[in-house]
Structures are given as structure tokens and as C-alpha cells.
């Protein structure tokens, strides 16, 4: 039986690797936390994995702008092979594999030019910068999924409550053409929304003043997903700030909605993987019963 192998990058200020790894494991995948130093010493190759994850954190302390210094390292520093990490990522994507970035990981993806990458040149087309409040904020937000998104990661989810924890999460789009492209191609896969599920610019429902009220972006292929909110911080129902009332009103299992996202994601990856590698296109989804965190 095939298994989804998730690479969770760590080090240099990344700090959400443990919960990201737990998310994949509880979601039914195998997860390995590997230090970026291992990548740059050539002792770990991302090609052994099905999905590469950039967890949240404060890479390089957010110096030079959140995610910027790590993006620079991944774009410019040479691996022992003489190639650069970003070239390896291109090859990885060429094989139909997936990349996921959360918070600081999303900021890194944006600053490397991997999302939205409308023009396909891996140049930075948008940025994530200081919240309109000028502050780092930790608060829970409700997010709506764009029904037309191509990412398999959000399949089956319309709405999800998640925590945001960032000081630089405001999406700014370089120009009008890119803005139109993002909308036309439905790359803005996740939006901050109000109680009715409608995208909103109202603070603090929209915590940062993002363009398009955008909380997450994909590339055109849907293979890359970046988002500011933290699904890996909602693996258990008991993470939700209103769990005490929710649990008493709707008893259920202990899964948080964030874990639901990872389970769906692992399911999609597994289906895809079995389709590609075992040449069984359209085969039914054989989801192992993933270990529940109860």
C-alpha cells in the first residue's frame, strides 16, 4: 500500500514543524522533519517526498521582511550538487508533486515567486507585508474557500475557523493585471469572511487588510498552496477558542477542522500518487483509516 511522504522543513527560525508533522501523521501520512542545513549539506533530498512543507515561524527573525532572507537562501545559495534549491523545487513540481506553505512558509513562497506565479517566470508578483494594524496579532478568523480553486488541499471544505498569528500578512498585489489574473484563475483560494461566509475587509474579521481579503493563494497548477492561517494549530477540537460551548452543543470526535484539512489533503495526494505511480487512473480512493487523535 502506498503512503504519502511529507517533508517538513525546519531550522533557521521555522517553529511550527512539530505540529505540522503531527498534522500529517494524524492525517494518515508519513512525515519527516528535516533541518534546512541537511538540505544544504546534501544529506537530504526532497525528491524522496510527495509534498514539501514550509511551516510557520520567524525564519531569520523576519529580518529584511518576513520570509525574505530564507527566500534568498533558497533562490541563491548553491547546494553541493551545484544547483540551487529553487531548481530542485522546479523539478519536484515537474513531477506533479506538491508544496504547502503556512504563515512564514507562505511568505517564503511568495517572496521566492512560487505563488501566484501567473507569468510562469518565478518572479515575485505579490507580497505579504505589515498588517494595517501595524501589529503582530494572534486571533481566530473564519475563512471561506473559493469553490473554483484548483488546489486539492481544500477539497470538501467551504468554511473553516483558523488562528492567524502574524505581523506581516497583508497581501499587496504588484499591479492590476496580476490582480485580474488571480481573480480570473481563482488563485485566491481562501478569504477572510464574516459570519455569513462572505469575504470581508472589516477588521478584525479580516485581520490584516489583505487585498481581495485574501488569506491564501495557489499557483495556476494548484500544486502549490500558501496560506496565512494555521490549520496545523487546529488538529484538536479543543484548540478552538469556543470549544467548551461547541463540544457541549455538538458532541463528536476530537478532530479539529484543521486536521480535516490535512486528512483531505493526504487523501488527495494518495489518490493522485496511486494514479500516477500505479497507473490506475480514476481508481477509487482507498483511504486508510487514519489514526484519530482521540
Amino acid at each position, binding site marked *: 500500500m502506498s503512503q504519502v511522504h511529507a517533508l517538513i522543513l525546519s531550522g533557521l527560525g521555522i517553529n*511550527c514543524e*512539530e505540529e505540522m508533522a503531527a498534522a500529517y501523521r494524524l492525517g494518515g501520512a508519513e512525515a519527516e522533519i528535516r533541518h534546512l542545513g541537511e538540505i544544504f549539506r546534501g544529506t537530504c533530498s526532497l525528491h524522496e517526498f510527495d509534498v514539501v512543507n514550509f511551516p510557520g515561524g520567524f525564519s531569520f527573525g523576519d529580518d529584511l521582511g518576513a520570509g525574505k532572507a530564507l527566500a534568498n537562501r533558497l533562490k541563491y545559495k548553491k547546494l553541493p550538487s551545484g544547483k540551487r534549491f529553487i531548481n530542485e523545487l522546479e523539478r519536484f513540481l515537474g513531477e506533479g508533486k506538491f508544496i504547502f506553505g503556512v504563515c512564514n512558509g507562505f511568505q517564503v513562497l511568495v517572496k521566492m515567486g512560487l505563488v501566484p506565479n501567473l507569468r510562469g517566470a518565478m518572479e*515575485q*508578483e505579490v507580497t505579504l507585508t505589515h498588517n494595517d494594524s501595524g501589529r503582530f496579532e494572534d486571533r481566530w478568523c473564519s475563512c471561506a474557500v473559493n469553490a473554483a480553486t484548483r488546489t486539492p488541499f481544500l477539497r470538501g471544505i467551504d468554511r473553516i475557523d483558523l488562528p492567524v498569528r502574524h505581523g506581516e500578512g497583508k497581501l499587496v498585489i504588484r499591479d492590476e493585471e496580476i490582480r485580474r489574473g488571480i481573480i480570473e484563475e481563482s488563485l485566491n483560494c481562501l478569504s477572510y469572511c464574516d459570519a455569513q461566509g462572505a469575504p470581508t475587509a472589516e477588521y478584525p474579521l479580516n485581520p490584516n487588510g489583505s487585498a481581495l481579503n485574501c488569506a491564501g493563494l495557489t499557483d495556476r497548477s494548484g500544486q502549490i498552496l500558501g496560506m496565512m492561517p494555521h490549520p496545523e494549530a487546529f488538529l*484538536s477540537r479543543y484548540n478552538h477558542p*469556543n470549544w467548551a*460551548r461547541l463540544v457541549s452543543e455538538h458532541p463528536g470526535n476530537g478532530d479539529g477542522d484543521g486536521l480535516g484539512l490535512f486528512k483531505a489533503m493526504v487523501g488527495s495526494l494518495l489518490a493522485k500518487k496511486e494514479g500516477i505511480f500505479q497507473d490506475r487512473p480514476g481508481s477509487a480512493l482507498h483511504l486508510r483509516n487514519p489514526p484519530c487523535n482521540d
Partner: protein
Amino acid sequence: MNETAHHILLLLKDGIFDVEGHRAAEEAGRYLGLHTGKVKKGKLFSIVHEIKEREIHEFAHFALKDVVLHDVYINTLYQNSTFQSFILVSKLPGVTDDEGVSAQKTLCDLLDMRDDAGRQFIFSHDLYYLEHALPEESLRLLAEELLGNPLVNHFQFGLLEDFSWYVPTVSLASEAHTAIVEIDLPDEELVALSKRMLLSLNLAEMKAIRAYYENPAVRAQRAQAGLSPLPTDCELEVLGQTWSEHCKHKEFNATITYTDLDTGEVKTIDSLFNTFIAGATGRVKQKLEAAGEDWLLKVFSDNAGVVRIDEKSVFIWKVETHNSPSALDPYGGALTGIVGVNRDPLGTGVGGGRLLFNTNVLCFGDPFFSGRLVKGQLHPRRILAGVVQGIQDGGNKSGIPTVNGSVVFDHRFMGKPLVFCGTGAVMPASYQGRNSWEKRIDPGDRIVMAGGRVGRDGIHGATFSSLEIDEHSPRSAVQIGSPITQKNLSDFMQHACVQGLVKSSTDNGAGGLSSSVGELAGIPGGAVVHLDKVPLKYPGLKPWEIFVSESQERMTLVVEPMALGPLFELAAQFEVELSDIGWFTSLGVLDVQYEGARVAYLGLDFLHDGVPKKELVAEWKRPSLAEPVLPHIDNYNQILTRLLGSLNICSREPIIRRYDHEVKGRSVVKPLMGPSGKGPQDAAVLRLSFDSYEGIAVSNGILPRYGDIDAYAMSAGAFDEAMRQIIAVGGRLPDPGKGSPDFWSVNDNFCVPDSVYEKKTNPDGKLKLAKLVRMCQALYDMSTFFNIPMTSGKDSMKNDFQGEGVKISVPPTILYSMVAKIPDVRRVTTAELKHAGDLIYLVGTTYDELGGSEFYRLFEETGANVPVVRKENARRIYDKLNEAQNAGLVASCHDLSDGGLAVGLAEAAMGGDLGCDVTLPDNGLGFNALLFSESHSRFIVSVRAADDAAFQAILGEDCSRLGDVSSARRMVVRHTDQVMVDIELTELMDAWSSGLGGVV
């Protein structure tokens, strides 16, 4: 200026909202009354390195610039007729500049070059463009009061046409000289010597040192080692650090003669620490061990106490203060406080604990203070803003959730704020089959320094914190931590310890290497250190400066020689610098060398045990206080909103939101919860792993204002406050022998004013010391009664400020920080009301105890009836409540503290977005006492109607039904057939939410 310096300026493009510039303009107007006009903030990088023009261009455009945000200017300034003046904020030479260092790393990545310069060559600055041509004095004020701090920043300001570049350059008189110090001096000159060298040692201590050097055996040993019979400067510095109040707790170990002037009773206390703190824990340990409970593993003897979670893991935690540095540079002080205390659990036993959470308690003066400040005193608002920013960066950037905290305001914290920082961690119970919490060191083991390089940072930090602050306080005592450096260090430590490459470790805090190596050397019985092997930030440090420097983000590791290779290899991967600086011996001597010459050679026995015991005098007299006669109150709605909006009660949301309280994904009870995420909670609760629902609860208890009436009641009350917050969420008290294997672990932190009697300078010293004794007595009584042990703690003894002849002393304060294991986090109770129709109960008994209350404070009264802890009642109530919680009968539970029932009920209602209608009993207590008394060991509890009978059956007389939860969003309080309070929740919420008025 250096000829090879290049300057790259990044400015936001037009159309991008300049958040920081905008805020600078707004705050300049609000706080300083300065009208800057528009402000534009730029980031400037100066590169002092041989580098080609083309490379500078590439660096600016491909690495520094954000193509969406920035315009770039290289070696030229942005000029625009809109802006007339500027302020350039740089770091002073040698001050931590993480952004410069990160830029340097990025340059190396871009050019694919190795950074072998061994020094910082890129420096970052903030450049502010101001629309108005402000006079120099205004610009200086803006720079020093708002944009930076003269203790850490260099400023240039003026009209734009006068702009010039600046690069911080460290230049020290490069003299690695070790001096010999004459110590064969008469007494008064000994004291002067201590003062001159900033040793902070008193006459008795200086005499003990003099006697040591006169000892013929010592002389012979020194002669053999090739040293002069007189001390070196390095030796005196080491003694000054090791014997400092900060490191040796001399007052807590002093012999105290205590007289109760009311009763005439006199007693002698031989060490407060041994008698009360270690004494209490010792008794609890005995009881636990007698009952076969073995969770209390290590107390007081390491950087942090250790308790057992289960067979596989142990819990470590430490809380300490960083008051003096925070008074001088609030941001750097608090940041260093957080990252500093992180290293305590990281360096306990073998080391490498995984840091699980931070907590903090902050005490400030009134942020709205509008009087005149004396020289050297920072405005409380500024201290508050800086400290909060420091705690934010210290926790968030390290990926450690700040799970809860507390803020206390009192005008006596105007001189020195109190900044308590705590960190908890989980460590495997064993590494390679050996107990992880034990420190093992054998002769021949190597001494390896890990982490940041050494500069002149924080020299005399340990002795400085043992002094009162005045306007001449040394600037080298101030430093700024580097969370990213420490994050790499902490990641490395965890891996190195799991791989068995580290045998023991400790952190480098106060006293730097001299303390860390000196303490570790006590285990095998000696050490040899080569200071020339210590990597420096810049040349020119004297050997003693290298040894006592408190440069941050450093650990000292004990490494077996054969592990050196793999350890250095691993460190390279984590980008952590290691240096092998010596080895341990069993020769009984701390042997410190520099370039082949001995600079210190001190007997370990003398170093650790040679400090003479202090003798102090305490005299207690109960203050003559009375209950006040208050004016008639005819509008309790108004009293309630005033109380909710008051500084010590109002919502901390503006602060809480700035701390990441849920990184690591384990938070269960967060500081704010409920349907709108606004409801304040009691203890924080978090899971220990993703594989089980076992967790811990974390709380803090602090009540400085009660000490104005009775320090004993204050200390006991603070203990109860911390304990009942854990009870509120569902914690279970230890009960040796009765099957309650869940650990409790307490850090006690004393912060008191100078309590040593001096006729002229400290005439009420005896009373202050008596208060300290009473605080300790209460600690002992509470700890032994409830079987809750102290596992670690700290005392900060000189929390006084002097300036322009004004002395401001903090009120004697004790903080109890508690952690208890929670067997199943799914069963915990949160504070907010849950459902309309639920029944509201008061659990516990209200007494006429308004003394020291927040209610009295509205009337500027203290009163006399301070709340006292009735231990037997408390125990009974806590056990019953726990039984009800375990039976699933408690829908919500909130502990009552500041503001009493009125505030507790309002908070539970606001948190749940539900109303309440309650009737207070007509039981002889006045309405004010019923509603506002802060009697201990009480909770406001809501219960589903279906559970009512079962709940009452358990609680019996310890609960009283007050009323119901209602869907009408109002709070109604009735008494003797009258409606006393009837107010909309939104009105309460508005008052409660706006108390901090935008100061953070």
C-alpha cells in the same frame, strides 16, 4: 568614515501604506505634542566590506528589495521637497543588530561566498523623513523618547540637507592586560575598592577576600602557580560576580533577628531560604516519598526544578525577574529576560529540554501618569510598550507560546518595573539510559561554549541588579537579545542532547562564563579555562571582561573528548558557533589562563563557600489601619463600569493579542475564549503531546497591594490565587498516599525594596525585612499545608530607584507561578457562561474583606480587613469542586479575585456573551462587601439545570445559588428586594475593553 562603506536605502513606493511612519507621526503628536507632518520610514543598510559596485547593485535589487514594496537608493539619499528633516536611528557600537547580521548572511547566500570575516560588516538603521523642519531639540526628543533609546541607539537628526552617513564602529583600547590589585588595605579603602571596581561587595566580604590572600597556604599555592600573592583584577571580578546578591542570595541566607514589637517575641532565623523555602519543600518531599510518590525529582540545585510527568518525560520550569535592565531599556530588558529564562530549562541537567511555553507577569506605574519624571526615569507608558514588545519578540520569534500572564499597576512601580519571565519545558526522562536531570561531569571532560560571540555586553549585570538604579547606572548593563541566534542554539541543543553528544550543560547568564564554568567546576572539583579560545565580537577585551561578559545566547556544554568531532559537525549544520575553551579537573581550583599566562587561580571552596554570612535585623509592627467610611453610593452601575475600566481589572486583550499564545498547536485554555474570543480565563491549559490528552495548567498569583496591610496575608493570598486558578480549570490538589500522582511545581519570586536597615539611607529597613520574613512564613504554611512544593525560585532584593533625591521603592511583592498536571484536558472547565438557563452559584464564602481591594482603590482607600486564607475551608472547597468537575457537573468556573464577585460575574457574562440575573443573600454583610470583597478561595460557577441536584449534593454548604444565566444581554444584581445593578453587557464591555486606552 570608512571609505569602503556602501549604503542601500529601501523606501516604500508611493501608494503603499507606511504603517510605521504613520504610527511615528501619530505617537509624536499624542505623547510628545510634536507635529511632524507626514513621516516616511526607510530602512538603511551600510556595508563596510570590499565589494564590487555590481555586487552592491545585485544585493540591493535582488536580495534586499521587495519588488512590490520598495524603491532603492544606493549611496544616495531620497530627496523630495515634501520632507525637510530627518532622524537616523542606528545601533550604538557593539549593540546587537540582528537585521544587519541577517543581511550579511543573505549577501553571502547571494554571492555564494563564505562569511569568514569573523565580524559584522553590515549594519542596519532606520531612517525617518519628516515633513516639517522641526528644531533640533524637538528632533532629539522624538529620537530619544519615541524612536529609540540613547542607551542602545546612536541618533543623527537635522535638516535633510545636513544629512550624513553613520557606521557604528567599536574601538577599544586594545590591551589584553591583567592587573594586580592591592588588597592589603585598611577597611575604609577596601570599601572604596569594592565601589571603584563595581564589585558590590561589603566590608565583611572584602575582609574575607583579604584574609584569603593573606593565608600562607594560599600564598604558597599561588607562588607555585606563578601568580602574585595579590589578587588579579580577574579574580576580584570573579568573586564579585559569584558572591553577588544575584548569584549567592546572601540576604536570603542571612541570620535574621526578628522581633514582633506587638508581642515582644524575638526569634532568630538562620537563613530564610533554608528555613522556609527549602524547608517547606523538604517537608512536602518527605510526605510524598513516604506515600511512595516520586514525582519531585530535583529542587533548587540546578537552573530549574524538575518534576516527573511519566516514565518517559520530565517537566522543567523556571520563572525569574529582569527588572533593572527593563527599567533602563524596556524592550531589550524584557526581550533578554525572556530569551534568558528560556536557557534555564534548556540548561537543566544534561540539557536540551523542549521549550513548551512562556508566561510573564509585569508590574508598572500608571501609564497615564502626567506628572514630571525625574532624571533617569522612563515614563511608565514607554516602559509598558517596550516591555510588551520585548516579550512579544522573545516568545513569538522563538516559537514558544506565551500562554498567559498578568499585569499589575501601582504608582510604586514608577521607579523600577517588575518584569517576571517564565519558561516551561519537557525533557526526555533519560538520554542514552541515564537520568536526564542529573549533571555528570568528570575530570578531562571538555568545556565547550556554544552560541553567540562575546563582547562587552552586560558586564557587571549580576552586580548591577544587586544595586539600586540611579541616573548614572552603567550603560554596559543594557543589552538586546537575539531570538534567532537563540532559536538556532535551542534547536541544536535538543538534537545534540538526544544524540548523546552533551554530557551536561548550563546557561551563561549573570556572570557569564565565570559563573557557568565556576558552578560546573564544583561538580568534578576544578576547571582550566583558556580565555584566548573564546571567540569575540570585536578585539580589545581584557581577559576579565571576556570571563564575566554576559553576552547573550550562550550555553556552556560539558563534552566528552570523543564527542567533540560529531558535536562540532552537528553545530555547523545548525549554524551554531562552538569553541572548545578548556577542561574540567579535580584539582580544587578554578584555573583561568590567557595566552599562556594565568589570570585567575581561585580555590573552589573559597569561591563557593567563602562568602561570610550576613546578619540582619527585622522588626514587625502591625500598621494601625481602619476601615474607611465611604460616601453613599446610589449608582452601582457606574461603580461597576469604573471598576471594570480600572487599570488592574480592564481587559488585557491589546497586550494578549500581540503574543502568539498557540504556536505548537497545543493550547486548550487560552487567555481569551468564548464565542467572541473575549472571555478572560484563569489558568492556561495545554496538552503535552499530540498523542494523548494529558496536559498541564499554568497560573500566576500576585497581590502586592495587600502587603500594605499585612505581608503574610499578601503572600498567602497570592499562593491561594495561583492555586485556585488551577482548581478553577479542573486541577486536583496533591494528596500524598491517596492516589493523586499529578505533579505540582511552583516558582516563588520575591521582589522587595532594599530591606537592610541603614540609619540614614534606609531607616525603615527593619520593617521591610520583617515583611519579607512574614511573606516567607506564609509561603511555608501554604506550601506544607497543601503539599505543593517550591521547585525553583529567585529573589530580587534592591528594587529601588533614586534620582534627584527622590527614592521610589516597589512594594514588597511575591509572585507564585504554578504548574500542575491535568490528566485529561478534555475535562477542563473554562470561565465564560455557557448557556441561557444555567444556574449560577457562588462557591466559597464571602467575608467582610474589602481591605486592599480594587473597590476601595476607587475611593483611594486601603482599609484594614485584608482577605485571609482559611486553609482548611479552601482545601475542602477545592476537593469538592474537583469532584463536581470530574463528574461533568460544572459548565463554567471562574475564580474571584480583583474586584470580587462583581468583576468575576461580569467577566463570565461578557466572555460567554450571555446575561445573568442574580440575587445576593441578605446575610448581614453589607452590599459592598457582598459584591466587591476579594475574599479568597471563591468561584463563580454555572451549572446546567439538569445537573443541579448532583452539584448541590457534592458542594453542600460550600455553594450558594445566586441566580440564572439569561439570554437577555444584561447583568442584573438584586439585594433585599432592590435592583442594585442593571446594565447592558455592551456597556460593561465598552468600559472593560477601553481601560488601557490605546497605550499598547
